[in-house]
């Protein structure tokens, strides 16, 4: 290798590194920028229905003043899962700009059961990971919960049920046609 060649490889390496840092930083920066509630509700589909309804719930205002925003429940915290979710989100762009199949509240209602089912499935698959970023059975003081909550939570721990099994519709209204389910099989309605 001549001196000039050496210099060349070195500079390519340096430029590559700088470029990498910039791109990487920019990538993470956009990742952060698109991970805010403001970004989510910049689309009217997200603002008109999900955001409107969220404001009536305990995750918006409560006695402790801790608020859960859209990404808290819908976007994973871990980097790998976050990137995967972001790639999936390009589908939302497609539906927003091209398909426009939920661009009015009426159309949103019509497709809502399907969308909700996607979310339920995603949460079931991850064992309600996003809920568990804030909530944890280990940190719950069952003595301070309502009896019916404490009893069911003990049952959930014993049988490995996950939050979304029992807590559907905590952040938005439930879709029309939703049939409640109870984890661990349903009672047959007959007396024991």
């Amino acid at each position, binding site marked *: 290798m001549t001196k000039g060649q050496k210099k060349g490889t070195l500079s390519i390496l340096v430029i590559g590194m700088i470029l990498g840092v910039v791109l990487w930083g920019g990538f993470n920066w956009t990742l952060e920028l698109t991970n805010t509630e403001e970004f989510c509700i910049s689309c009217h589909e997200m603002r008109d229905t999900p955001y409107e309804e969220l404001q009536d719930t305990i995750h918006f205002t409560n006695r402790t003043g801790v608020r859960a925003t859209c990404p808290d429940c819908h976007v994973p915290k871990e980097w790998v899962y976050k990137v995967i979710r972001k790639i999936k989100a390009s589908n939302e762009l497609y539906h927003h700009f091209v398909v426009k199949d939920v661009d009015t509240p009426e159309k949103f209602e019509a497709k809502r059961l399907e969308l909700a089912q996607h979310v339920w499935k995603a949460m079931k698959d991850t064992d309600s990971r996003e809920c568990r970023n804030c909530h944890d059975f280990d940190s719950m003081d069952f003595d301070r919960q309502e009896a019916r909550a404490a009893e069911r939570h003990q049952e959930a721990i014993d049988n490995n049920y996950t939050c979304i099994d029992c807590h559907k519709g905590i952040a938005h209204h439930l879709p029309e046609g939703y049939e409640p389910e109870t984890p661990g099989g349903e009672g047959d*309605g007959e007396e024991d």
Partner: protein
Amino acid sequence: MFHSQLHELMEMKMKKRLAIAIAASGLILAMGTPAIAGEKVASLRGAHDLVATSLKPIKAKVISREGGFERSYKQQPPMIPHKIDKYRITIKNNGCMKCHDEKHYKKERAPLVSESHFIARDGTKLDHISSRRYFCTQCHAPQKNAQPLVKNEFEGLK
């Protein structure tokens, strides 16, 4: 001569105007402050002070009671022994039936709505909640630990 007469006339006119202006403003003042007249009339409110009745409201929380509240009489819609702010009753869904319907009540350890809730107006038994019983909170209410304003010695059905 003519000049001084005119001057006098003008002075008189001005004094008159001033008097009218004072009288008018006195009248306006009197009308604007009816309290002066009110002093002699007793208020319907009596000795009760307006400020005294606007004390800070006592904050009472919804009570959760295991086993429920006792009923005061037969056929009383039982009181709700838990919080209900999470559950919505809309045209699409009835949040109460997530626990109180036939399919789920056992798992949820909740009492099943009674049979009367499935009877339609014409007396037929339905397999879903009757529209006459759809709006649960029309008859059932959660309870707060509010002290009765008037002493009451009524004893409920035991």
